């Protein structure tokens, strides 16, 4: 029985790697989502075209293929990535493409009168976006961003296949060392589920905080 604690330690180490990946991937995804999402509603054709190409490309090919491409093919182009870098890059760019559509949808969901009010107040395009449109759009985006973050958490399990020691990888290690299958996989499933619950709870809390003071504005 004593050795289980050692193996549990191994799995918890994997959980730390998974959390680290999820956080770094989410930051990259968030940046890409805003860049590409605002690019999609830009005035300039070229920006719209680049953003659309990025979104279609990363939504069209699966995360697994992108990860393998980043890890195995990019070195031939002279860009060697560590497994962690490849993982964060692939996860961030992939989920960022999905989230970009959320950003676009949320920006378009803000009513016409808000844009007209911006013009009436003589705000520049960027000022109007920054002070009027985005604060309202952000609240619309949040719940879907929460779902995207959970998708990202689930997608991190794929990095175990490029030898990054995350939760899934450690479960395989424990399986091959002990021959026991139920304990490692069930505990890993439960940890993933707990992390997903934490994310959805965090997003709900954030949503409630941000909605404060906007009651009069939102219909």
């Amino acid at each position, binding site marked *: 029985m004593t050795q289980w604690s050692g193996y549990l330690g191994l799995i918890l180490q994997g959980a730390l790697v998974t959390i680290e990946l999820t956080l770094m991937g989410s930051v990259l995804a968030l940046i890409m989502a805003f860049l590409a999402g605002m690019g999609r509603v830009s005035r300039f054709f070229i920006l719209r075209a680049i953003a659309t190409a990025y979104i*279609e*490309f990363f*939504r*069209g*090919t*699966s995360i*697994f*293929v*992108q990860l*393998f*491409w980043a890890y*195995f*093919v990019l070195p*031939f*182009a*002279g860009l060697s990535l560590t497994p962690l870098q490849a993982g964060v890059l692939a996860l961030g760019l992939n989920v960022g493409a999905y989230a970009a559509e959320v950003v676009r949808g949320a920006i378009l969901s803000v009513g016409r009168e808000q844009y007209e009010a911006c013009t009436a107040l003589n705000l520049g395009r960027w000022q109007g976006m920054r002070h009027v449109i985005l604060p309202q759009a952000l609240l619309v985006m949040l719940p879907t961003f929460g779902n995207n973050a*959970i998708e990202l*958490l*689930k*997608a*991190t*399990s*794929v990095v*175990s*296949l490029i030898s990054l020691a995350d*939760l*899934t990888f450690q*479960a*395989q290690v424990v*399986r091959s060392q002990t021959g026991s*299958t*139920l304990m490692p*996989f*069930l505990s*890993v*499933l439960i940890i*993933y*589920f707990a992390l*997903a*619950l934490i994310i959805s709870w965090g997003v709900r809390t954030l949503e409630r905080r941000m909605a404060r003071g906007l009651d009069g504005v939102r219909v």
Partner: protein
Amino acid sequence: MDWDWNFVWEIMPTLIQGVKITILATILGSILAAIVGLGIALARRSENRIVARSVGWFAEFIRGTPLLVQLYFIFYVLPDIGILLPPLVAGVIGLGLHYGTYTAEVYRAGIDNVPRGQWEAAKACNLSGRHTWTHIILPQAIPPMIPALANYFIAMFKETPLLSAITVLELMNQAKSVANTYYRYIEPMTLVGAFFLVISLCSVVLLRWLEHRYGRIER
């Protein structure tokens, strides 16, 4: 980084074999997901509170955990309790179960969208519970769901590379074995990516058509 067309033609037959398995897994997985989803959606509406609650929690759990770990679970844990499955069967069950929890939400929304009056009319015509479902509710609920269901089946298609982790010889696995034999990653990995991109770009057109054909709800 140099691209070798001769090598591409040489590995093509192997990759096409993988494509066949990928498509087979997607079709079987979609059928299973459609059935499992309907089962979950109906169970969650059950009169029996315990059944409804426990199925709800089970679906929530599956949706919050990675498909890869679930595949490992089916592939490694079930043989220990005497259920030995071939890799492809295990993969199809994993895909069907995982996406079944997503399609269950589509069914739920579709069923909730059938107007109350239809239920009351069925009752007024003295139809039994089974007849109400098969003749009144489902025929009205299913057509508007078709685009959303197709969307999940396309998402499932993009997740099939994960089956390579449990030794199913689908496209990704064939590409990996080719790459490991010749130590050339550029062509196989890029071809896999291109294949998925082409299919999902085509599927966008198919989705548009489905939405046009079935998406509108007649009132």
